[in-house]
């Protein structure tokens, strides 16, 4: 286990009758990015709060950076950085004042805390707004400052709880870039998200979490492979023919994206499906612009795993 930065075995956390964590297991290797993917209320924030010593678990063995979160909370705190779901900043103070404050509380001393604050403001492109009160920051700036605050000591393990929720595409891209640049430095990152694209883009491995439990775990490719089936995409020339195509084509479980004039469906036999579709199109005279076979997207995997389809859940 020496190479694990995070080990979670059978973590449980109850709020009254509600089990926010229900026997959750997780193992994250050092220097990797691990995505925790789950819908609202899955238990992502609860997990992050337990890992960052903010919340005491009811049961389970939980180690972060080689230390127990219950017995050795102080040792854990020395080695982690936390970007919570909501900004954890002093809104009345300026950006620089915030970073200096946190630097001092990390016992860097006045001089190093100041230098570190400048360095981080520069790196996160906040240098000219360092004096402004955080209250006046935009959502993206606030998120970047929050991220900077969680990196004061170059933590061994960094927790990011939905780092881009509520940001516009540009803000999201900025945060993604920052996370990518961190990974090179050997930091272990645990990242929760509701965006499959985000996990796919940033994470080496992904745990899909629902109702406080991991329901699937692996690389993005493994997860896609595990629910098997390839998909076929058919792009039509005329949106008006979508309805007719759904009725005619020899496919089941078809989803339609009208804007892109796109039909998608899972297939079991690739060749049979492809020739069946081509034949049906020729016979009916419906014009297609493109036909492609592909592996499922993480979106499809996700809906599959967390949807009502309990049989599938069981199988995985």
């Amino acid at each position, binding site marked *: 286990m020496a190479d694990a930065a995070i080990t979670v075995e059978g973590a449980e956390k109850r709020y009254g009758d509600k089990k926010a964590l229900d026997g959750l297991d997780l193992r994250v290797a050092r220097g990797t990015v691990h995505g925790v993917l789950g819908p609202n209320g899955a238990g992502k924030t609860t997990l992050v709060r337990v890992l960052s010593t903010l919340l005491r678990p009811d049961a389970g063995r939980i180690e972060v950076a080689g230390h127990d979160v219950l017995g050795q909370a102080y040792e854990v705190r*020395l080695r982690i950085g*936390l970007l919570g779901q909501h*900004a954890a900043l002093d809104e009345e*103070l300026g950006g620089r004042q915030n970073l200096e*404050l*946190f630097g001092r*509380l*990390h016992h860097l001393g006045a001089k190093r805390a100041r230098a570190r604050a400048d360095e981080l403001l520069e790196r996160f492109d906040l240098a000219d707004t360092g004096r402004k009160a955080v209250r006046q920051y935009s959502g993206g700036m606030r998120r970047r400052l929050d991220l900077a605050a969680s990196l004061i000591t170059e933590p061994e393990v960094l927790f990011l709880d939905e780092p881009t929720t509520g940001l516009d595409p540009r803000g999201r891209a900025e945060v993604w870039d920052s996370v990518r640049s961190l990974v090179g430095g050997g930091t272990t990152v645990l990242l929760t998200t509701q965006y499959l694209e985000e996990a796919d883009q940033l994470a080496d491995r992904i745990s899909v979490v629902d109702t406080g439990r991991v329901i699937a775990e692996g690389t993005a490719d493994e997860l896609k492979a595990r629910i098997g089936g390839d998909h076929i995409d058919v792009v039509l020339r005329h949106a008006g023919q979508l309805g007719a195509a759904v009725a005619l084509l020899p496919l089941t479980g078809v989803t339609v994206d009208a804007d892109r004039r796109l039909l998608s469906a899972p297939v079991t036999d690739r060749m049979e499906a492809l020739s069946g579709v081509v034949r049906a199109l020729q016979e009916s005279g419906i014009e297609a612009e493109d036909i492609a076979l592909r592996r499922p997207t993480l979106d499809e995997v996700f809906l599959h795993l967390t949807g009502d389809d309990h049989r599938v859940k069981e199988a995985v």
Partner: protein
Amino acid sequence: MTAYALTDAWTMTRRELSRWGRQPVQLVVNLVFPVMLLLMFGYLVGGGRGVSGEYRDYLIPGMLALTMAFGLEGTMLAVTQDLNKGVIDRFRSMPMANGAVLVGRSAADMLQSAMALVVLIGVGAALGWRVHGGAAAFLGAVGLLLLFRFAMLWIGIHLALVAGKPEMVQAVQILVWPVGFLSNALALPDTMPGWLGTVVEWNPMSHTATAVRDLFGVPGAESGHVWPAVIWPLALLAVFFPLAVRRFGRLSR
């Protein structure tokens, strides 16, 4: 960890001072508000007698005690804001001394209250008010006022941790006023209906005000009333300090 307890407490106190620097108007309002109350009660309620003569000697110690009592709101508001802004989560996830958040809050609030006392006493002096007791008695009175404020402070922290939501601060603000006025700060309990007089005499704030009047040498003040003004705040602290500390620890439940 404990090696840093003092450093961290100082850092957290400085944080509050930086906030004052950021919002000097807020600080000034906090300091001027008690002065406004003093003038209002002196001139309007004091039956046109103004802030002079006997009523003034009676009123100023009462206003000092009332200002300490109203500090409870400020403490509760500040702690509630911290809790709801999530910045406390960052503090708690850092390798800092556990109690520093609360110690910093206490130090800053006590400092602000001491400043409020200085301002109020200064305005009183400017209006011609003089203490009749000695310097030691004067310092003793200030000490009792700050002790009372310290008790209010921990009640404020506890209430913030229990209630947690900004709406609750408003509820407490509405309650603090009648509790503040149900004291002998502004008027003698003798002049009130019997049951009300009893409530007023039991109010811990009344004890502080009475003791301060005694130490200031206000003519006609009840003497030998210092001990209740020491014991009441200490009793409140004995209850609310451990409760607040326990509540703070329970944020991780």
